[in-house]
């Protein structure tokens, strides 16, 4: 069987590529509308502010991870809070990561079914999406990183696909700046944070980064890039649709692309979907890998490949049972986004302060 220990192999670029692509996920398609509902034309400010907030969260996670240089969360948690509580934390994180896979697949399937595969049964789409993710996640981090460094090119492609929007652009839709009031802008941050999750994987991925490249610049660049990209997308989308119109459109980004007409291809949204598929898979793979990595640690197994298979099966089963109407999905989103704060901020902060108090740090 393959060796589990691949620590210290990710370069700066590889870690950057992974973080960026995990952060860019399903959320962005509906983000302009979600954030417009609260912060109206100032949605893009919310996104910028959310980027700053997230940088704060990332810093906490970074500080925690650097204290345990060569250990993942799964390894240092039991040391910090004791064996049983540590295991509980590990289990909680694994379940959280798995539920992220669950939610992303659920949302993505929903969008796929509304935009491309109208009549294809849910189960088939689940099997396809999770199947592709499984095929990659069962391999070691080295192979996964190779894939991520390659697909980073597609993220750049995503930017280019938005260029035609500049034609039907009306800046007046976001003016006057500050129309929604500070209160609403701050409220909007919450909505955005949900779409930018992914940096918490650093808790587990940190020891895999090559020691030479363990610089804060990785997270700063990754988060900065995602924030700017998101702000750009939200800004462009809000300026293309009139305020009343955007309220009616669940996925403004796709809708905007659909309305562009080119000589050769008339449905840009389909092209976007195809590139987007890659983005979704990159999000899924990393969560799936990290979750099964945690379960492997808890079960003290040697190889994670089998665990990934069981996790994939579990997720497909849960997806099959789960409610699939739009209101049901909304409930899941709410539940998960509320609990996510526990995992991205509260727990890391507690662990960090504990490690300061107990003066515990890895070699």
């Amino acid at each position, binding site marked *: 069987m393959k060796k589990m220990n691949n620590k210290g192999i990710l370069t700066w670029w590889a870690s950057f590529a992974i973080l960026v692509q995990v952060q860019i996920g399903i959320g962005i398609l509906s983000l302009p509308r979600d954030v417009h509902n609260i912060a109206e034309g100032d949605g893009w400010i919310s996104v910028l502010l959310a980027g700053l907030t997230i940088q704060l969260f990332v810093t906490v996670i970074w500080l925690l991870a650097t204290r345990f240089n060569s250990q993942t969360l799964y390894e240092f948690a039991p040391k910090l809070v004791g064996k049983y509580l540590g295991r509980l934390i590990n289990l909680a994180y694994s379940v959280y990561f798995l539920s992220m896979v669950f939610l992303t697949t659920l949302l993505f399937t929903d969008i796929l079914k509304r935009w*491309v595969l109208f009549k294809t049964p849910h189960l088939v789409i689940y099997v396809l999406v999770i199947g592709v993710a499984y095929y990659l996640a069962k391999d070691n981090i080295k192979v996964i990183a190779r894939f991520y460094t390659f697909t980073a090119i597609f993220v750049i492609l995503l930017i280019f696909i938005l260029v035609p929007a500049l034609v039907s652009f009306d800046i007046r839709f976001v003016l006057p700046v500050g129309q929604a009031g500070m209160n609403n802008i701050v409220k909007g941050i919450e909505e955005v944070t949900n779409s930018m999750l992914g940096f918490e994987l650093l808790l587990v991925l940190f020891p895999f980064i090559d020691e030479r490249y363990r610089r804060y610049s990785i997270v700063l660049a990754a988060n900065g890039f995602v924030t700017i990209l998101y702000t750009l997308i939200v800004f462009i989308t809000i300026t293309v649709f009139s305020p009343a119109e955007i309220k009616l459109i669940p996925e403004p980004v796709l809708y905007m692309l659909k309305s562009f007409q080119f000589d050769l291809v*008339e449905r840009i949204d389909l092209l976007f979907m195809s590139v987007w598929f890659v983005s979704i898979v990159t999000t899924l793979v990393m969560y799936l890998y990290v979750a099964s990595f945690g379960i492997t640690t808890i079960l003290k197994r040697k190889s994670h490949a089998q665990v990934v298979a069981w996790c994939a099966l579990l997720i497909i089963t849960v997806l099959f049972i789960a409610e699939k109407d739009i209101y049901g999905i909304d409930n899941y989103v709410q539940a998960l986004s509320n609990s996510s704060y526990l995992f991205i901020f509260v727990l890391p902060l507690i662990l960090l302060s504990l490690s300061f108090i107990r003066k515990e740090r890895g070699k």
Partner: protein
Amino acid sequence: MKRLQRRLLLLIPVMLLTLTGCWDQQMLKENRLIYGIGYDPGKDNKLRETVVIRSVPKDPKAGIANEIVSVNGTTIREQRSLLNKRISGDFAEGKARMILLSEDLAKIDIYPFLDSFYRDPRSPLGAKLGVVKGSVEEIYRIQQKEQTLIIEYIEELLDNEERNGTIPKQSIQTVCTQLFDEGRDFGLPLLRYDEENEGVELDGLALFNKRSYTGENLTGHQSKMMMILAEERGKNIELTFKVDNQEKENWLYNYVSVIISDADTKKNITYDASAGQFIVDLHIQLEVQIQEYASDHLYKKEKADELEKVIKERLYKDADEVITKLQEVNSDVFGYGRDLLAYHAKQLPERELHEDYFKKMKINPTFQVTITETGGIY
């Protein structure tokens, strides 16, 4: 070896899943491509829908043809099913190029006819939208204008006029943004059956307020003026003015045709607190090229200056006419409401636009005209 066996075993459920069907297949071959859709008021409070289907012959050399089908129904969905019963193959509107509404229907509300297009991801958002004076069916039943199929004919006609700057560029999608924009209205091309030539004629621009046709329309010339005022596309618009009254017999000498080679519009909106009124100052600088001017040759600077002055006056008069007409029907095709919301939200009562904000506005256009070219002769 064992690993391979296990893999093959895994393949079986995957195969079963995939081979059970291709759920979303919509074969191009089996679909009837709808090319144009039109709505007329029918008898007994019903709706009459006419569709143009582009029929593709099995033998490619046989030439092209249209198939026109009309049905009466109460709702749009009901009509779809009625249509499906009358055509061979599946009804597919994914490639529709043209949607025409009879003016009587447009006067009520155009949104219900478009709603299904916005919902279906496959629908053609680039299709053109137009209002018809009279019956749409009558136009569609022309079938073919010489060698050109009716839909292509209308499409090219509209395309051409859009390029010339007679009408604004509109499609279902651009209309959607404006339908939902409280601070903006729009105009759609108004078409008419041309009995003399057995064709279609563009009769100007049908003005909309909110979601319904006001019943008023701008003529072609007025529409061009509107385009200049709207700073959308001032360039390449051709205008003809009557600049003289002297020649009675040879009246052709009284006219000048110019083409605008460059337009620069400066817009300034101010709020007059005492009157509680917004004032729009438009300063439009035009560089024109003489296309046709039989009466005099412009080698003298004074002559040219004089002509410039006359054109300016004409422009002002026409612009004023257009603005008055627009304000009468409260159709804010310029989108000034958007400007108010964006830049003057503080001065708006309760920061919201009132129903008749456009009517209350004062719009002052000023023109400046320079003749830059006269063509091959002076």
